């Protein structure tokens, strides 16, 4: 699973007494988080987009704790006959966690599943005439594994990179071999502003009656249930359960977590869209 959180027992350096203290302070109303954030408050982060000149779109984000994520999106023209799997193969995601030999199955699957959700309309924009299509490579690099689960950091950066991805404009006819406009300024966005935006995944932890967003590793360790909720324009496009917590959780709690994630996601979307406008 997560790079640092290999198992619940070894995941945190906290003693059972400390965990119990943390659990109690998180179940209070109003809850008290160790870093005195409000339940829906994210940790401060530094974000920038368009940092890699040789990609079609890129972004970088840094958490305060040193976690850093760089995403580069590259596009290639491919013949329709090459990828046997059909449009499903047109977007390839790859997660590289520095210091880990295997790529993380969970992170890659979450991103790929939410990107390829039917009806998002992105695959239609990749068609180039009758015989060709764009193949998009989303390469995600987690530089320093942050002290918490990297899912939130990773998808926020991916969102930013995809939002800033531009593809060269096609000038040839549908039946011809594709020829592109050589002016990058005429490039078309992969995710136009008026269409469905790329999805984001929020990590949510439920402790007692309280729901916390962007949890730290310690908060994950005492949570009743940890869910990764993927949201795309007011719609839930995926829910996954993460390791952590003991015993099951009532269905009402799960529903409440999902409901609240949708509300918080709207704020996240609007603040992400503001990245880069300031400078």
């Amino acid at each position, binding site marked *: *699973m997560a790079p640092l959180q290999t*198992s619940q*027992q*070894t995941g945190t350096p906290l003693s059972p007494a400390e965990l119990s203290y943390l659990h109690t302070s998180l179940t209070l109303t109003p809850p008290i988080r160790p870093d005195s954030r409000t339940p829906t408050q994210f940790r401060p982060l530094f974000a920038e987009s368009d940092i890699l000149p040789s990609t079609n779109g890129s972004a970088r984000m840094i958490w305060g704790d040193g976690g850093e994520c760089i995403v580069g999106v590259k596009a290639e023209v491919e013949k329709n006959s090459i*990828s*046997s*799997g*059909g449009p*499903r*193969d047109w977007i390839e995601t790859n997660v590289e966690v520095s210091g880990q030999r*295997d*790529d993380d*199955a*969970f992170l*890659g*699957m979450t991103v790929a*599943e939410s990107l390829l*959700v*039917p*009806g*998002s309309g992105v695959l239609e924009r990749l068609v180039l005439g009758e015989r060709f299509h764009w193949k998009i490579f989303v390469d995600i690099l987690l530089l320093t594994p942050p002290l918490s689960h990297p899912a939130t950091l990773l998808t926020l950066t991916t969102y930013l990179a995809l939002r800033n991805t531009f593809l060269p404009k096609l000038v040839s006819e549908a039946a011809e071999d594709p020829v592109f406009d050589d002016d990058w300024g005429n490039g078309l966005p992969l995710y136009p502003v008026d269409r469905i935006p790329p999805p984001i995944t929020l990590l949510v932890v439920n402790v007692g009656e309280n729901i916390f967003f962007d949890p730290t590793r310690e908060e994950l360790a005492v949570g009743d*249930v940890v*869910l990764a909720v993927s949201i*795309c324009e*007011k*719609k*839930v*496009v*995926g*829910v*996954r*359960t*993460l*390791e952590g*917590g*003991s*015993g*099951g*959780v*009532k*269905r009402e709690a*799960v*529903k409440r977590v*999902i*409901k609240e994630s*949708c509300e918080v996601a709207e704020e996240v979307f609007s603040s992400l869209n503001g990245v880069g406008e300031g400078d």
Partner: protein
Amino acid sequence: MTDRRRINGPAEGTTPPVFLTSSTHKPVIKRSPTTLRKIFLKTSLTPPATGSAFLELPTPSNPSTPTLKLTASVYGPRPLPSSTTFSPDARLTAELKFSPFSTPGHRRGYIRDGVERDLSAQLSIALEKSVDVGKYPKSAIDVFVSVLDCEGGLGDAGDGNDGGVEVGLMGVVAGAISCASAAIADAGIECFDLVAGGVAGLIRERGGVVEEDHVGEGMEAGEDISGARHGEKKNRGIALVLDPSPTDGYIILAAAAVGYMAARDELTLVWTKGSMGREGDGTDEVERLVDGAIAAATSVRLVINEAVKERLLLGLKEIGLIKEKAGGNDGDIVME
């Protein structure tokens, strides 16, 4: 002059044999959307394992159509290897493996790929929360699930799904959870509850086949087939289907798999795919889907109960605590 050193083929040539593909026939939906398939579940079939179970879904009318078959074996609780650090709880690891011949169409490799690692992680999450790990310090419980046959729909190349969500993996996970939970019970490991896996999907109606045996689930038949995409006209032409199979031929908009502990009314795993709208007026598709999956899991739980009980009674009979039961009970129970 003839060439006598080689064995030549016929001079006029031959035509290569053409085999009929099994996928040409149209799938016929016999089940109503809210009926589950029968489940065959039997425990203690792998002698060397501490506990084991075998789960199989019934073979459809066409014998060449694949069905889900999987075995689970549980080893442990056994001591952790001396190299590992101290652990106050039992460490449960689950490993799910597709057999190379299990997938219809193309072969799977022996090396675990991303999909298998992902499913293994989900399986271990679902099971870990049901086992009383605090009772077994310094020990390891290993669960191995091996998929012998599955129905496809795994998102592989050539699965040919016209724009829906793949439910094959969810069916495998749900089956693996139920089977592994029965195996854990068979191993005699203390649990809080048994976990049952359930899958539900939201479908958009198409064609006339589905309409006939539909048990009106708040939808107007026939009128909305042309396909208002989910969004503007929600709940019209969108129906809930329990235990969907990739061979059913539904176009599934969204699907959910849950691990559910029925006696405690608690979830251990939630996994959804596909986009689900969220409206404030009580027609939340997420809630509907999760409730549907829970309903499916509750029915599956009855089968697990029966399988575990059957084994227990057999054990009691062997040591002579109870007498032979009269009347043939073949282990089949009827689900509603």
